[in-house]
């Protein structure tokens, strides 16, 4: 394992410390792995809390700020945060208007956030929760855990964050978050594994000429291992499953997110984007807005995921609203 670290047990703590040193607009809650928006309590609005295991940087702390999250909770690497940490995040930003917890569909995240919301409700804080399940690689069945949540989560932060900023009620913020989830599909692929610092060796083995298709964001193996293909063929594999799932139809307008998993150069992400947009055009799907960058990574894994959000007028308007976070900045600066 070659990594720029001091102690595998301290990676989360030291990362968070380094992060607030670099970004004075976010604050760490003393003694907790919780980052919050500076002075967020001054604002009379529904608060948005997200989080999960560490190793997905810039998610989730990178999306704290105007128009998106109020607080982010970090667990250990690829491990859900514990309920006491989540509760602290909820309390740290509570304005009295309630909190929406944005949770990805992993058993650990679901259970820990559920315990935290039970605890917050005992403290008199109104809580709503949405579960993101955008990954089409995973079979959705009533007999299983269902689909996991991956990079499409960023769209949910953006849509719900814009609604909360308008002063909407908790139920309204939840409604648009759920609408985004219902219209959101993603799929990812990887060329290499990542190495969890405390484990010290790659999570899975993969040959030089192979790729994992349909994997998640924790270095867990994908649903199939196949021979490496061109960007155009990779795009086709991912886009076909995404488009057929919702389904996205000719005439639909979508927002596109091409997400890097940690060690894929922007060059390759842009090439993938070109291939994806070609496919959309062929299928008569109009791309309204495109985001290409690293939003939700899997440590140093090489690979990418594609997310598509089907838009209507309301979602378009919320997507266009300004955001001022560490990573996503659009439409001019808005101060807290």
């Amino acid at each position, binding site marked *: 394992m070659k990594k720029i670290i001091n102690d595998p047990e301290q990676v989360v703590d030291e990362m968070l410390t380094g992060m607030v040193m670099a970004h004075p607009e976010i604050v760490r809650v003393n003694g907790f792995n919780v980052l919050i928006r500076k002075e967020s309590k001054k604002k009379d609005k529904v608060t948005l809390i997200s989080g999960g295991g560490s190793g997905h940087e810039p998610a989730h702390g990178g999306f704290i700020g105007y128009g998106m999250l109020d607080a982010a909770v970090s667990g250990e*690497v690829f491990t859900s945060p*514990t309920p006491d940490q989540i509760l602290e995040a909820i309390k740290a930003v509570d304005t009295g208007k309630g909190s929406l917890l944005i949770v990805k569909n992993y*058993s650990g995240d679901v259970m820990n956030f559920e315990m935290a919301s039970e605890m917050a409700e005992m403290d008199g804080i109104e809580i709503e929760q949405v579960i993101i399940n955008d990954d089409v690689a995973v079979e959705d069945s009533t007999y299983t855990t269902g689909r*996991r949540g991956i990079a499409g989560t960023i769209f949910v932060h953006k849509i719900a964050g814009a609604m909360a900023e308008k002063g909407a009620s908790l139920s309204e913020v939840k409604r648009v978050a759920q609408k985004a989830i219902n219209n959101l599909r993603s799929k990812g692929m990887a060329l290499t594994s990542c190495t969890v610092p405390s484990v010290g060796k790659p999570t899975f083995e993969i040959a030089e000429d192979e790729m994992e298709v349909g994997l998640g964001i924790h270095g*867990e193996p994908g649903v199939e291992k196949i021979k490496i293909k061109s960007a155009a063929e990779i795009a086709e594999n991912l886009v076909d499953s995404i488009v057929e799932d919702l389904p996205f139809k000719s005439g639909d307008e979508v927002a596109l997110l091409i997400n890097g998993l940690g060690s894929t150069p922007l060059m390759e992400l842009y090439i993938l984007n070109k291939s994806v947009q070609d496919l959309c055009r062929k299928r008569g799907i109009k791309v309204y807005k495109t985001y290409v960058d690293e939003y939700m990574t899997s440590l140093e894994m090489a690979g990418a995921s594609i997310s598509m959000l089907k838009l209507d007028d309301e979602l378009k308007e919320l997507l266009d609203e300004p955001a001022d976070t560490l990573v996503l900045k659009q439409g001019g600066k808005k101060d807290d």
Partner: protein
Amino acid sequence: MNCNKEQVINIIKNIASTMEKNKEYLTELDSAIGDADHGINMNRGFKAVVEKLPEVEDKCIGTILKTIGMTLVSTVGGASGPLYGTAFMYAGREVTGEKELDLTDIKNLFRAALEGLVKRGKAKPGDKTIVDTLTPVVDYFKSSLDEKTDNEILEEIVSIAKESMEATKPLLAKKGRASFLKERSKGHLDPGAVSCYLMIKEFAAVLKGVA
């Protein structure tokens, strides 16, 4: 069969050291069908539990178990934190005020732990989870054990737990992260089923006086 407070403390300490010893093994099992953190997480949790024990050593067994549950919930994370945490909290609630447990208490304690697990994780036997190891043990405790000696009972629960843990290998995972792998989840032991077996083994070893 009786189990006093000192034995409870010893069981927990032995579970902690077995988690430490099996840290890499559990993590390896988890990297095949999960996200490679089960051993690390369980070790972190039980290390914190051992540090916490001196604070509650003079309390009743119920309080000790509830404190263990709370500590696991706030240090393990992932899915195993809330699952084992809830199991220990439910087990603790069942034996509130007790300084020594008899066979009936122990039966109730195991049943309550399973109830907590199922409530939190909503898994059924056959889903390839911790529940697969624990359910047959609880079922065995439900049967009439009058004619058996303590040692026979303790040996039996360990072999039942071992068999049921091994039986998770060919199963298709229906809960947790392994379920995302569908067919690819077959052929691997469930890491949670294994850690649960390790706990039951330590429990029996202390009561048999061999650990």
